[in-house]
């Protein structure tokens, strides 16, 4: 019910666009689940994407020596039954990630590099990785630690760790098992309606302000705004672009935002010959020609796209990794908007009359995705390409993308772990299903040089050296015009003016820092 009760000092009501599908922190790797997990199930460490730092959580301290990571657990952290968190719980949790019953999308990729885990007494453990893993902490920050059913630590291996009782997801969902230790605990979870959180009074860290938080599922944009305007909720997430102005003008409300790491881009099919959605080129794929890719990049007026189509709720992008994120390359200049040169380049490449191309975009995946795609379509049309747009709901869209049915398609890729390497590996590394690389690289951009740089970064622990490698890789992609980066998203929340709500670059709803505004 979202009306009548206003934000008391005791209760915070949040209208969320997408509800978590489970309370189980290991069940399903999607934004809403991970967002909830941040509040109810602490990981070993916290990845503060806003500041770009890793903060202690269940692990009060850690040290690294090559492939050996040693974590000391916070002795104050206790589960609901009063038992302190132990190494056995951590091992169990990491093992469980591989063995969550029926998970539709696991967190497995975050623990792939872990070779072994060794408890050192009750409150310490050592994780050894297969090779140097510079992003282990970021990876571990995504995995909530739940209480192991038995005190005896498991033997960590890549299979089932010799265990069979993995705690069912239902048990988490119906509240018979706690999701772990967090500032809040879930007291009621009604799918399609709401999730109610109560303050965890045994929490070892700073106590959150609100006694109760109600997360209300309001997927429809208008309904979510209406709920805020009518006072039914105190905070909403995923504020749609078109409503920003009105909320801004409303004295009782405020907007908070954080740049998010997700890059929205167009990818070019650089392998198909002919390319599936291009005609009028005698079977050639013009997108394999760097001049054409450059021409397309120059044809797009990113400043206008951001200021008009996105109404300023985005950050123009020229390369893959967002400025705040580890590995960003600030030296790469803006990609200029130069339609004249674009036409010249097209002519030079032999397409003075352009060519016919259908570009593809999802209709319900990213904020404003169709509008953005259509704006770009318009811009490409303006440089003489006979371009049209097709859009699909995501259930159809990505299936086709995975079958390489597009020539130029709209995509988005974030830095899940809060640093650039994973994003780059996913997006610009040559597609290599075996090793799980280039998974999002459905245009099949491929550069040996980039691959080499990224491989090296993968085993470079020294941050500065690694940063340089990532930056250089991006410079290569930039020169190659391997992608058409458009912008990085900005996450926006709206809240009542009397509520202090902190934005989060990971687009998570961080509830425990919320409090009444001064």
């Amino acid at each position, binding site marked *: 019910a979202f009306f009548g009760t206003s934000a008391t000092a005791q209760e915070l009501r949040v209208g969320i666009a997408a509800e978590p599908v489970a309370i189980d922190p290991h069940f399903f*790797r999607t934004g809403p689940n991970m967002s909830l997990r941040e509040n109810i199930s602490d990981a070993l460490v916290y990845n503060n994407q806003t500041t770009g730092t890793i903060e202690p959580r269940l692990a009060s301290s850690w040290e690294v020596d090559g492939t050996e990571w040693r974590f000391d657990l916070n002795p104050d952290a206790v589960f609901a039954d009063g038992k302190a968190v132990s190494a056995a719980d951590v091992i169990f949790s990491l093992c469980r990630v591989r063995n969550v019953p*029926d*998970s539709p999308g696991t967190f497995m990729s975050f623990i792939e590099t872990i070779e072994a885990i060794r408890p050192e007494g009750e409150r310490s453990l050592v994780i050894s990785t297969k090779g140097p893993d510079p992003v282990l902490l970021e990876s571990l920050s995504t995995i909530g630690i739940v209480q192991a059913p038995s005190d005896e630590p498991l033997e960590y291996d890549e299979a089932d760790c010799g265990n069979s009782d993995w705690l069912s997801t239902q048990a988490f969902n119906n509240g018979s098992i706690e999701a772990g230790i967090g500032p809040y605990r879930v007291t009621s979870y009604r799918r399609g309606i709401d999730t109610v959180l109560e303050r965890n009074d045994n929490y070892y860290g700073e106590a959150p302000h609100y006694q109760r938080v109600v997360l209300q599922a309001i997927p429809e944009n208008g309904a979510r705004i209406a709920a805020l305007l009518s006072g039914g909720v105190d905070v909403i997430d995923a504020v749609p672009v078109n409503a920003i102005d009105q909320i801004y003008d409303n004295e009782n409300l405020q907007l908070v935002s954080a740049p998010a790491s997700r890059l929205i881009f167009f990818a070019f099919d650089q392998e198909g010959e002919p390319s599936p959605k291009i005609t009028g080129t005698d079977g050639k794929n013009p997108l394999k020609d760097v001049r054409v890719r450059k021409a397309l990049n120059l044809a797009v007026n990113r400043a206008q796209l951001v200021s008009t189509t996105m109404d300023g709720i985005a950050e123009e992008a020229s390369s893959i990794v967002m400025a705040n994120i580890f590995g960003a390359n600030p030296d790469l200049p803006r990609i200029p908007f130069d339609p004249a040169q674009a036409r010249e380049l097209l002519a030079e490449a032999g397409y003075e009359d352009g060519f016919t191309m259908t570009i593809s975009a999802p209709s319900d995946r990213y904020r404003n995705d169709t509008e953005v795609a259509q704006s770009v379509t318009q811009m490409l049309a303006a440089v003489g390409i006979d371009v049209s747009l097709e859009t699909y709901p995501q*259930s159809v869209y990505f299936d086709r993308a995975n079958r390489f049915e597009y020539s130029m398609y709209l995509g988005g890729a974030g830095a899940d772990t809060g640093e650039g390497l994973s994003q780059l590996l996913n997006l610009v590394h040559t597609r290599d299903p075996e090793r799980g690389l280039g998974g999002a690289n459905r245009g099949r951009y491929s550069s040996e040089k980039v691959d080499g740089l990224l491989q090296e970064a993968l085993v470079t622990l020294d941050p500065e050296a690694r940063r340089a490698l990532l930056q250089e890789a991006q410079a290569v992609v930039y020169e190659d015009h391997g992608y058409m980066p458009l912008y990085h998203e900005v996450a926006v929340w709206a809240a009542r003016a009397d509520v202090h709500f902190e934005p989060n670059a990971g687009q998570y709803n961080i509830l425990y820092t919320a409090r009444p505004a001064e």
Partner: protein
Amino acid sequence: MLVYAFRRMGQALLVLFALTVLVFVGVWMIGNPADALISPDASMAEREAAIRALGLDKPLWQQYLDFVGGLMQGDFGNSFIYREPVTQILASRLGASLELAFAAFVLAVGISVPLGLYAGLYPDTRLSQAIMGFSLIGVSIPQFWQGMVLIILFGIWLAVLPVGGRGDTATVFGITSSLFTLDGLMHLLLPAVNMALLKMSLLIRVTRAAVMEVKGLDYVRFARAKGVRPYRIVTKHILGNIMLPLLTVLGIEIGNLVAYAVITETVFSWPGLGRLLISSIQVLDRPVIIAYLCFTALLFIVLNLIVDILYTVVDPRVRDAIHSGGAK
């Protein structure tokens, strides 16, 4: 007639069978549930793991056989995303859907049939014209628009009604519903009105058209010649004779109210079945879709049966027609 009922049941089974096949093939044609479920950024290995976990790596016919096997034991399978029995998921939404449908139905029928009667009886009065004009609102303004206007009007400007969600529930006679609490009713009002408006225009118009047909007939005049009260003329002689089209429309609309309140449920964040269906279609959650459609198919078949039986109750002539098999 008993045979008739059995035959209808047999036909229903056929319909259900066709439906499940259609959904399997349809979902398979539309896209891959795995892609709709997992994050597009996920790695290939994870994707394949997920596909295996969902059983989508098997050939389609095998998946279907597995499904039918489960069905034999009364198991509709687990939802792809929630990994919980779909029957349980559906059941959790049914209450909200039914009460919304009920409220909308009561509103729609309670208001529109009298209005339609009036407009049909006195077509030339101002009020009738106003009713007819009003009835156009329902059809001509898209429902989501209407919903938002209601929200803005009553939720934001006047701020007298809640704008979404289901209110408190109470249990009376073993039925848990928000119909029994004030808060629940307040929450129910706007969505019910939103849903009722569209049905109302339909009902007003069907009623009016039928009344205009019937009111000039001799038996209505004869009833007047008997000195029968206008009220009784309307209820017995006119209503009785316009029941056929009305019942048909109602039969379908009740089904639609329960099963496809998607727009209203979305705009008003009502936790009903319609929204579940749409989100399931979006992510191609096949088990939910199938169970859902089987449910609605049964709903419609039963409603249709009831309507057919009611036909024979309200119009004895139809009874003859059905039994003597058409025109012959």
